[in-house]
């Protein structure tokens, strides 16, 4: 049973690392919302909502723990029973899956977002539209097809009749944006709100109206919430005029 030290260590590491490969480990600790400790609610929200929701929570007043991640990862965590009180993904399909499983109910759209081409400040590669995404000579990135921003970007490219030649499919929208900000990519397709959040380091190029894809953000309270009233109050605040104003300031449109 007992192995010699080096190999036991090697095996243990190999298996731990193999597990680590399935990702999401930083989000394991989720505060104490599920413990009924009265320390506030936990909101699982799409990574693209990071800045807007951080400001919303500050304005909301009551303690709220924010858990940001790719919508699809959050969905998997919630379906696996992770404790949270409110879910706000970046696409309806993630919400639908959670509602179908009985984990959330009565979702409502609270915002919309548009896609934009993002280029490093100065746009040295001279990217001007979707057609440039077929150019193998440029360094181009998209979100991976498996995450909403990648799916929507491919939809927009397909609407425009462009067959993209990309150098990387990033696992989430922030990862893609970071590479463009650092100038390591000539262009990517992200949400308008992300371009706004990145400030002066990047520039946004609007998509033509007929290729534009508008995404809806739904929000719902979760069935397993230990603080259903607080959760409902937060959802109401997001949907309120005050909440919408904050979202608008971060580049999100009305639902």
């Amino acid at each position, binding site marked *: 049973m007992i192995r*010699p030290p080096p*190999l036991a260590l*090697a095996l243990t590491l190999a298996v731990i690392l*193999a597990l*680590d*490969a399935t990702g999401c480990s930083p989000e394991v600790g989720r505060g104490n919302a599920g413990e009924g400790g009265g320390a506030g609610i936990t909101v699982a929200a799409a990574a693209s909502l990071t800045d807007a929701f951080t400001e919303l929570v500050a304005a909301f007043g009551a303690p709220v723990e924010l858990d940001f991640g790719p919508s699809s990862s959050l969905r998997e965590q919630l379906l696996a029973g992770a404790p949270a009180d409110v879910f706000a993904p970046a696409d309806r399909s993630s919400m639908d899956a959670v509602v179908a499983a009985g984990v959330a109910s009565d979702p409502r759209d609270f915002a919309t977002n548009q896609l934009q081409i993002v280029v490093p400040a100065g746009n040295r590669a001279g990217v001007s539209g979707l057609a440039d995404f077929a150019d193998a000579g440029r360094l181009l*990135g998209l979100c*991976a097809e498996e995450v909403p921003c990648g799916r929507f970007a491919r939809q927009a490219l397909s609407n425009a009749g462009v067959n993209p030649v990309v150098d990387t499919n990033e696992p989430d929208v922030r990862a893609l944006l970071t590479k463009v900000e*650092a100038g390591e990519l000539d262009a990517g397709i992200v949400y308008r709100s992300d371009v706004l959040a990145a400030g002066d380091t990047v520039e946004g190029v609007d998509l033509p109206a007929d290729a534009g894809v508008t995404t809806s953000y739904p929000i719902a309270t979760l069935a397993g919430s230990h603080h259903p009233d607080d959760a409902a109050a937060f959802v109401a605040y997001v949907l309120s005029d005050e909440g919408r104003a904050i979202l608008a300031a971060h580049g999100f449109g009305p639902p």
Partner: protein
Amino acid sequence: MTAGTAPRRRAGQGRTPWLIAPLAAVAVAYVALPFAALLQRAPWTDLDDLVGQPVVTDALRLSITTALAATAVSLVIGVPLAWVLARGHLPGRSATRALITLPMVLPPVVGGAALLFAFGRRGLLGGPVYESTGLLLPYSVWGVVAANTFVAMPFLVLTVESGLRAADQRYEDAAATLGASRWTILRRVTLPHAGPSIVAGAVLCWARALGEFGATVTFAGNLQGRTQTMPLAVFLALESDRDAAIALSLVLMAVSLAVLLPLRDRWLTG
């Protein structure tokens, strides 16, 4: 770590102190249970379909080859570094050791970003190289090897260093007294003594590189057939299809076990 091999055989198997065995059993159970749970969730009936796809075979081939390449690079530059740390007399040795250990501590994603700032298109070194030659590490298979090496090499360096320290230096002194050159001593005395620790270090390094995710995706990106290794494929499969993600993880585990289990008898008990 490797110092334990010789005394273990001399002590014999029947004389284990009473508390050792149950504690070791707890350790084994703690690691084994999550894997049992994973196996129990595995989609056994669809396994063939899931793992036969090109996305999986591409990722598996890339993972194995880049992990091997990273191990080779780590051996070439890591073993000399381990020797310097164990035997050399340079000032700032502990600072060097701390530095070389940093990639183990750093979240790999941060390591990947640091690599980008150093070797990316706008990086400290990568910038001038790209401007003059057009060569770029990110988005290429060499970028994957670079990320793997950065994260995995410390495991080799620290293991080999401890092996060199544990080896009895009097053999080297004796060889020197008998007129052996420094190079001969290294080749005929030091390295053979450090052999098991070099193998153990290489295995650790390879295993770490095989599972590497964060630095790879941040530095090299993610493109099937070019930079998408198994961990990246697993991560993205998890976004859309949990069964596929578990199936891919099983493949990764099977590959590492297939390599690690035979290695034990072949090398480490000799």
